[in-house]
């Protein structure tokens, strides 16, 4: 168990003492002969943005797929607020408060913003209208959606009844974020949220991430964009070949050192 030393190092950097909101211990996953994860740990504390970086094939995506219920790890355990959980599908993870925003947009283009925010969790009218006629409480959902969008500070989303396909890519991603946040989630995982976006639109999404941190919601941010990670993350977990090789902070290490660790040019144990 070579990881134990690293875990101590991670704990010493920040947030020590409190229970992680989300923790993984010794997660392993293999696809046939390919070993994607070799006993990976991860701790995410309240109110922090944890950057997750690594070269292609380092295991970042497999790790977050395990954390968000899209994959079932072969071994290891996941804890939410210290309690052990076992997700069998994304819905299970969502019920535990873990929401994921993917690079490919998880919104329905033809529906309006409010409908997208409440998709799969619609609210019905109180009384007989709701129970017998199954009538949706459209105005209440729109009011709640407007509130959620305002809280995120996405002021460019003015008309909540506008269909999502008329929005720009950044705005759509903002809807996906708002959607993930709207349901009292404990953890938000963002897998390359800006990869498909232009510079200005990326700025909108990253602004939303900052707002989330201010509100105390912890975020795991996966990105190939090093300046973005160094700007936003409180701590940065670096992965290589299915292992966590280091947890650094933007203050303790420069971007160049981070990339060197990522590619194996530098070894933190040294």
């Amino acid at each position, binding site marked *: 168990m070579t990881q134990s030393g690293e875990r101590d190092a991670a704990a010493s950097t920040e947030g020590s003492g409190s229970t992680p909101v989300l923790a993984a211990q010794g997660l392993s996953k293999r696809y046939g002969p390919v070993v994607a994860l070799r006993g990976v740990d991860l701790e995410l504390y309240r109110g922090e943005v944890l950057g997750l970086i690594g070269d292609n094939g380092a295991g970042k995506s497999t790790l977050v797929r395990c954390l968000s219920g899209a994959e079932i790890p072969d071994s290891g355990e996941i804890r939410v607020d210290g309690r052990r959980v076992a997700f069998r599908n*994304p819905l299970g993870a969502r019920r535990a408060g873990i929401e994921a925003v*993917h690079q490919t947009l*998880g919104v329905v283009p033809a*529906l309006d913003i409010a409908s997208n925010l409440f998709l799969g969790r619609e609210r019905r009218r109180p009384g007989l209208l709701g129970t017998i006629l199954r009538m949706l409480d459209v105005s209440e959902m729109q009011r709640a959606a407007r509130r959620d969008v305002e809280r995120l500070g996405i002021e460019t989303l003015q*008309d909540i009844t506008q269909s999502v*396909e008329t*929005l720009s890519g950044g705005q759509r991603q903002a809807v996906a974020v708002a959607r993930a946040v709207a349901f009292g989630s404990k953890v938000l995982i963002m897998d390359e949220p800006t990869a498909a976006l232009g510079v200005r639109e990326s700025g909108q999404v990253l602004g939303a991430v900052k707002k989330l941190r201010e509100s105390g919601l912890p975020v795991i941010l996966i990105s190939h964009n090093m300046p973005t990670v160094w700007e936003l993350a409180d701590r940065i977990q670096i992965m290589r070949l299915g292992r966590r090789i280091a947890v650094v902070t933007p203050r303790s290490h420069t971007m160049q050192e981070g990339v060197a660790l990522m590619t194996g040019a530098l070894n933190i144990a040294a």
Partner: protein
Amino acid sequence: MNETEEARGGSESAAGHGPERQAAGGQPHDIRAVGAPKRPLLHFLHRYPAAAPAIVLIIAVAVFQFLNPRLLRAQTISLMLQQLAVLGCLSIGQTVIMLTAGIDLSVGAVMIVTQMIMAELSITVGLPAWVALVIGLGFGAVAGGINGGLAAYIGLPPFIVTLGTLGVFTAIGLFLSAGTTIFFPNPSNLLLWTGNVVAFGNFHVTTGVFLMILLYLIVAYMLARTAWGRHVYAVGGSPEASQLAGIRVRSLLMSVYLLSGVLYGIGAWIQIGRVGNASTNISANLNLDSITAVVIGGTSLFGGRGVVIGTLVGAMIVQVFETGLALAGVQSFYLQFAEGLLVIGAVAIDHWIRALSTGSGRA
């Protein structure tokens, strides 16, 4: 008009007239950021899919009324509504299926088999009419369930599935009828109820027409005001995102095909009432006519966009063309010609609207 001016103001300001933008726009930032009507007509059509067909209907009525003033007589209108009832009913089911990005080529065949089953059970077997009706509706549901099961659970393309069941059900219908027509000796048979006439002055409207309108209202409500309806649009627009949102996509698709099957069964009931007997000599065009009505009515072939009331308007357009051209003394192939143009026009508009979703992000 207003929106056009605002949009123009916005684009000018983008070109560098900063102060003007502050003065003119009020909230110029919002206008640009929301991507609001740079192309107001396009946005209008996008938001109200039934608007374009409604305009076409009004123009068609005006033109044919001008050509022959008999069009808007009570008698003609009554007749048109009666002829509309069956196609209108079938097209409801077709609409819901097409909203999920599916298609049903077997509509007419299912309807024909269902009416043969209802008539055989009531007349030949001698079951009470209401039992025959219920079993017939049940068969409609089973037929829809077969289509839905193959499409949703096996994952076969709905086009191919329903092309197959079109053949199968057509054959079953011919087998059941053996080429004969089943007549109803007792005019008070429940199966003929949909043909009862309610008179309002000179207007003679059958109960089948009211039944059809009621079904439109019910399904319109389900689509617009229930979670099930939202999920129909969501699954049609993006099955992957729907799955991620926790919608059980397969059972939703199944529910859509089952509902459509029941609607085809009610269509069969209306058909029996309208002609007073049951036979397989019904226009085989019903399959394609229902698709025509849905497409003209503004529902996208690619799913996720459209309203059921638009389909009613689409079916009315087809009916007005049919009756109008006949009244104008024009040969019947012009009807097919006109319908063809309408379908192409409707699909072109849909294509144009779809460009909005891919275009505005970059604009």
